[in-house]
């Protein structure tokens, strides 16, 4: 009897202790034993989210500080809204360069490298990526105003169905329109901007001559100089700086031996290492549906990837509607207007800065122009390109095996 009781007790204690084992699906080596995540939104008007695994909390906090400093530096150097602070460590930034046309200015190597890459990309995109058209971009941004709730009787544009309808009722923040039994959120509709407003911007930008723009970059004894010329030239690095800084942050993580990581810079740009838990270490990435953009809407497709950058340029954020067309902040240097070929252009590649700039350039290229570029450069730059076209078809130009479902 005693033995039976002892046996039952031993069994129960064993079961109890097994239940205390920590649930950990992976055998973690020490170098990746500590999971860390942080986010900040102080720079480039973007929420930066970083997740990674390293060996200890102390190391994670050091990495966090370094990444924060990388974004801070590129923000201060590339902003065209604010001058450098009086005690800044840097020589010039984009704001101060824009104030000093036709003057040769010494700049920091970090800023020199961004401008140099931008100029190289201007050449290989046949001018579709152009950092000198800040005045034109500003003119179009001026009509992109904050959303307002419509009034009953107003005509609104239903972004999903691309039709105009009159508002019949507004109840608890939901909008009802003629011909539809369902209600809409303010995110599902747009008010038309007037033809007058669009024409005013078109008149303004037609007066901006970009043919005399020049950006001279020189290097002498490890010192770096820039001189910009042109009556209407205004540098704007908004289409490259975020991706460029994100790539630098990724390079830093890799140099620290971090293998499992992700950095998300806003909703349009991510860099990823390996996924800690998913099979094969690949992340599962969803592509934003530019037609249905409410938070509950699914994307239009997904794919799997690791150790790459992914960037989307699209017309689904920051835009206004006029006569069925979306007028957004990505402006074609060729026509000086927002282009209407695609709703989104998504790139998968190895360098987030390159992707940020090229997705902006491709957005303004016609299908024919884009396919000529692909023929010349796709393999060199190892880019996968996915376009969600204006007619809602999807075109894929893929090199990688990404198990896509669209």
């Amino acid at each position, binding site marked *: 009897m005693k033995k039976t*009781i002892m046996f*039952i*007790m031993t069994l*129960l*204690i064993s*079961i*109890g*202790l097994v*239940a*205390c*084992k*920590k*649930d950990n699906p992976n055998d973690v080596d020490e170098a990746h034993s500590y*999971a860390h*995540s942080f*986010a900040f*939104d102080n720079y480039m008007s973007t*929420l930066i*989210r970083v*997740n990674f695994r390293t060996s200890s909390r102390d190391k994670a906090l050091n990495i966090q500080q370094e990444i924060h400093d990388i974004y801070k530096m590129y923000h201060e150097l590339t902003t065209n809204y604010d001058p450098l602070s009086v005690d800044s460590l840097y020589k010039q930034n984009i704001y101060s360069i824009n104030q000093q046309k036709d003057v040769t200015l010494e700049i920091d190597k970090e800023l020199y490298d961004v401008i140099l890459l931008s100029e190289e990309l201007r050449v290989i995109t046949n001018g579709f990526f152009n950092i000198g058209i800040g005045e034109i971009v500003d003119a179009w941004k001026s009509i992109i105003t904050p959303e307002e709730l419509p009034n009953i009787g107003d005509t609104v544009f239903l972004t999903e169905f691309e039709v105009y309808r009159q508002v019949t009722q507004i109840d*608890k*923040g939901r909008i009802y329109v003629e011909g539809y039994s369902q209600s809409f959120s303010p995110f599902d509709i747009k008010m038309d901007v007037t033809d007058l407003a669009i024409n005013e911007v078109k008149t303004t930008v037609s007066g901006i001559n970009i043919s005399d723009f020049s950006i001279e970059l020189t290097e002498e004894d490890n010192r770096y100089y820039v001189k910009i010329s042109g009556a209407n030239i205004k540098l704007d690095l908004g289409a490259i700086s975020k991706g460029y800084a994100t790539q630098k942050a990724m390079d830093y993580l890799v140099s620290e031996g971090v293998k499992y990581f*992700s950095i*998300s810079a806003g*909703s*349009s*740009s*991510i860099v*990823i290492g390996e*996924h*800690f*838990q*998913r099979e094969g270490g690949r*992340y*599962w*990435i*969803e*592509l*934003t549906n530019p037609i249905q953009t409410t*938070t509950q809407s699914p*994307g239009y497709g*997904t794919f799997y990837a690791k150790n790459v950058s*992914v*960037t*989307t340029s699209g017309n689904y954020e920051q835009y206004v509607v006029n006569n069925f067309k979306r007028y957004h902040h990505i402006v074609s240097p060729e026509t000086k207007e927002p282009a209407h070929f695609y709703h989104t252009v*998504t790139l998968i590649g190895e360098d987030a800065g390159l992707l940020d700039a090229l997705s902006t350039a491709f957005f303004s290229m016609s299908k024919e122009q884009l396919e000529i570029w692909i023929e010349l450069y796709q393999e060199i730059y190892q880019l996968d390109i996915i376009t969600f076209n204006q007619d809602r078809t999807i075109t894929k130009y893929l090199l990688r095996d990404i198990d896509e479902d669209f």
Partner: protein
Amino acid sequence: MQNRNKTQNRRDIILVSILLVIIGSVFVYFNFFAYNQDSAVAHIYYGNSNDPIASIDFVNQEIKYRKQDVPNDYDDIYPIIDTDNRTITLLGDYRVDGRRQIVVIQYNFGAKSVKIIQESSPNNICSLEGTSTGKPLICLPNRIRIEFEKTYDENEPDFTV
């Protein structure tokens, strides 16, 4: 007779020991191991609904919410989102003098934690639970519960770009 009693006592002690071991193991597991993983989102539910009134997204550091249906004789619109004090206030079901009482939930993005800091109920069990980073918090008389979602869900994409 005495021997029989002795045996009976010994058996009782063994039985109580076994029960203590089982209860102790379960207690240790749920308090120290079951909920020690990082959470991505904390969902706040009211009543039997599985559609959260508010969701605290620790990764994106944002609050998503929908309006809580409350009778017209309550002046405020719930939930009340106070981003300065990092609190979310819902109307619970527990009544004092015929009026439903509020439940105030405080969140901490950095610590990925949630705590119920104010509620009315007979024993105040849910506010005495303290801060949670993964263990569900349930305010039964108020019919409000908070459940956590882990950082990784194999059935959901990791990013939308």
